[in-house]
């Protein structure tokens, strides 16, 4: 396995993990999406180990990593955008949500 700049673990995933430090806005990263290697342009600076969208993700849609849901998108996310706590949220262990029910 060669070193990957953007690691997409499962073909179902709509996010990939950036594995190169100090990548800036406008940088093109190679990643494998639906079995094809494509270049995605970063829409912002993304720190080492953080995720980007590799497919469009609509607000309310599941964010998929390891082929499984890691949370829901809280806004529309375009490929190349940083995916993190500002645009996805957890659905588990949320005592604050349970309280409101």
């Amino acid at each position, binding site marked *: *396995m060669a070193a990957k700049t953007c690691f997409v673990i499962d073909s179902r995933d709509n996010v990939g993990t950036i594995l190169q430090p100090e990548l800036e806005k406008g940088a093109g990263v190679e990643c494998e999406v639906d079995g094809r290697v494509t270049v995605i342009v970063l829409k912002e600076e993304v720190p080492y180990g953080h*995720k980007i969208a590799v497919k469009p993700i609509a607000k309310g849609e599941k964010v998929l990593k390891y082929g*499984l849901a890691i949370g829901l998108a809280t806004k529309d996310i375009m490929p190349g955008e940083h995916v993190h706590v500002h645009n996805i949220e*957890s659905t588990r*262990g949320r*005592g604050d949500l349970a309280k409101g029910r």
Partner: protein
Amino acid sequence: MDKFWGYLNPDGSVGARNYLLILSSTLYANGAVERVARSVFGTIPIIHPLGRAQTKSDIRFTFNTLVGTAKNPNVGGVVVLDHFREEGCTAEEIVEKVAKTGKPVEMVNLRNCGGTLEATNAAIRAAMAIARKISLRRREEVPLAKLLFGLNCGTSDTTSGLSSNPALGHCSDMIVAAGGRSILAELTELMGAEEWLASKAINKDVADKIWKVIGDFEQRILQTGEDIRGTNPTGDNIAGGLSTIEEKSLGAAKKSGSATIQGVVDWAENPPDKPGVYLMATPGHGAESITGIAAGGAQVLVFSTGGGHTISHPIMPTIKVTGNPFSAKFMADTLDLDLSDILEGRLSLEEAGRLILREVIETASGKPTKSELLFEHNTGFAIHRIGMST
């Protein structure tokens, strides 16, 4: 790589160490325990803030933890120090359980001895006698099947789920294939990974138990009425790129590899003899989790970290590994194994698993971890509690 050198115990278990434990049964014996441990070469103190005025269920947690820690195969002998007589966690009750293993165990009560200094003298003399006796023990070569292996992770980041955790899973698979057992724990950090774990259960009963034990733990979290985000994933997890507890969980669960999950055990419970992976009910709190695993009898634990860590259990060697190339450099003093070649494309997960297994065998056979060499015994012992103080 299917054997290690360990100390054969009278109860048939095999120790990776031959520690003499100075154990505090209630927090008010902590001072004397530390004084005794400072005075006798090679002893390990166990102190804690509990053992008194707890709810009955929490007293049982404390008791089972102290008994399990003293019974751990790595402990060659024990001196228990006590202050009060707290029903459910007295030195007498601890000693009665530990003595059944056949290892030497002595008890000193501060009140019966004429105070803390007289008790110190009595405990030092008891410790010296046990130390001389257990120093005669020698390591023997034993099959890897004798290993109960602990799995844990902490200060996780996105490299954990991509490299060090799946590599650790391969190591666990090899230990199980050799007839050994592994313990997976940290229920908070399995929320979202239930389906994958349940698919590896030996039968439907165990699959149901996996769902239930994680579900019950989530209910306790929900009952707080608080948003878990920011405390788990923790601030350092989020800085490391993990966005949600589900993402952390799916990466964390990879530690358990592909072997069959044989059962679900309680906090500090010794799993049955059958080879395989066992899920222990502990929280995600690193020190509490590894304390439960050690009290369940694990001789060695591998702690997989993304951002780097200092954690080390007092009597269970805690091997720390990372797949993050930056942490491998700036936390090199306490990390035992650098697996960053995985993400650099130079090392397969299977090869990394074999490197971890070699480290496990060497450590179980007597090689000290970096944290053991640095006397960082106080970074990995904490007893879980549910209720209030009474």
